[in-house]
């Protein structure tokens, strides 16, 4: 409680609008945080499109972020594919609709479970990683050191990471979808003879462009948000080493929450365009 109070006191700076101080502390914090994050995102767009471009660093980060998450994403996606199939099967059997199993599983995986699951796992792994890494760079003055050596640290550290997560999470999600479907196929196979061709034929026959495209588009936003929040929390890390832990922690919490919020928005938009 004490920490919170100090924070709000600190925030009563003249820059903020006068009405802010009339609101409850929690709301104040939320609004200020949202404003700061938005400004941070604004700065990202400002700097991302101006040269010099840090291509090398983007590639390196993409490797760190993408390649090193492959096994985790792959394993969880596989398990979810298997479990989802095994769980759904009895119900469908009861209604004599077992033949619909591949179609049902594939739609739920591609539309919803794949993207959101991968995004959540990445929010945990990548978001916390970025938050902790930048946080410790901040408190050990590495960011200052970079600035002093004539490098724009925002560009070198933040922009590259956000671009990498924005590009890598869709790829991870697509891969996750594929592996989950494969898991599902194996699960179906244990219950009865079905060939891979037949299974995937059924999957793709029932999949529509309007199932795939919006689902992929939203993963770009998930990726952006995970990178953005991780960087924001890390870059603004305070209170020494303790702050590093806090940054990592709140990066995961906020990024995961935002993934769900974005998902909610995405479903409204797809519905609006009649894709549901």
């Amino acid at each position: 409680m004490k920490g919170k109070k100090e924070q709000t006191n600190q925030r009563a700076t003249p820059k903020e609008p006068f009405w802010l101080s009339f609101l409850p502390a929690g709301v104040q914090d939320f609004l200020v945080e949202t404003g700061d994050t938005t400004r941070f995102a604004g700065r990202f767009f400002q700097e991302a499109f101006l040269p010099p471009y840090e291509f090398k660093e983007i590639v390196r980060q993409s490797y760190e972020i993408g390649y090193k998450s492959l096994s985790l994403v792959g394993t969880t996606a596989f398990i979810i594919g298997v479990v989802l199939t095994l769980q759904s099967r009895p119900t469908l059997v009861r209604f004599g609709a077992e033949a619909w199993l591949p179609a049902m599983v594939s739609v739920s995986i591609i539309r919803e479970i794949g993207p959101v699951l991968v995004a959540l796992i990445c929010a945990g792994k990548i978001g916390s990683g970025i938050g902790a890494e930048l946080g410790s760079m901040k408190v050990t003055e590495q960011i200052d050191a970079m600035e002093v050596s004539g490098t724009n640290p925002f560009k070198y550290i933040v922009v590259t990471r956000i671009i990498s997560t924005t590009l890598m999470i869709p790829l991870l999600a697509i891969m996750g979808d594929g592996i989950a479907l494969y898991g599902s196929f194996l699960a179906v196979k244990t219950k009865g003879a079905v060939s891979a061709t037949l299974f995937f034929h059924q999957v793709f026959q029932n999949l529509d462009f309007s199932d795939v495209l919006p689902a992929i588009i939203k993963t770009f936003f998930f990726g952006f948000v995970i990178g953005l929040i991780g960087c924001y929390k890390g870059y603004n890390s305070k209170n020494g080493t303790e702050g590093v832990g806090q940054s990592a922690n709140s990066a995961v919490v906020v990024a995961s929450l935002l993934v769900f919020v974005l998902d909610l928005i995405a479903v409204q938009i797809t519905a609006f365009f009649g894709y549901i």
Partner: protein
Amino acid sequence: MTETQNTAPVVNQRTSEFGEPIIEISHLQKSFGENHVLTDFNLTIRRGENVVVLGKSGCGKSVLIKCIVGLLKYDAGTLKVFGKEIKDLKHKELDHMRARIGFVFQSSALYDSMTVRENLEFPLRRQKHNKTKQEVKKLIEEMLDNVGLLYAINLMPSELSGGMRKRIGLARSLVLEPELMLYDEPTTGLDPITAKEISRLMLEMQRKYNTSSIIISHDMDCAKLTANRLVVMIDGVNYAQGTFEELNHINDPKVHAFFENQQI
């Protein structure tokens, strides 16, 4: 002599033997909220001059050099580096100026994700220079040799001791052969022998490249060896300045306190 008006015992400044002013600080003020760190700080440093800044822990020495390099914004006063007011510089100009300044962080601030070699390469990669790959390699090895750590070239910072990190940080800030060096406690935490070697290295840089430096240090041996002039910072003001001998024999208890061990 306006720059020393309200400070107590100021001794002869003897600046004639050095070149043009590199840093000109007058009436510098910096506060963090209610914490008034620098209240009225004045200092001029000329080309080729080594100035040691003494002061109690927490009195604002690190804040001072962070203001000089633009990491912190000062509240009032003027601060000119290479003849330009830091406050008025645009991003690009500031980056350009920083390329001419070497900064040794108190905390070393090595890049954790890079090896020692990459740490030293980083400033070279980020700045325009006309060195070939071979020359860069040679320069890095030479700098590491200067600080006696050539054997650590492929280690990660996490594998180094505190003193080793300090020396790597020093080597990293020297690779660009800066005209102005800002050392934040370069010898703290080193054994006396290594500390002496580092002090010698700092002197050598001064002679070889005619570098000016601000050296923040509590190490009086280092100060004695490297300083052309010492400045004592008390309560955010340049309280006293002069050569080592001058300050050593001064009759002011506050200044005297720093020299106690030297009296015997």
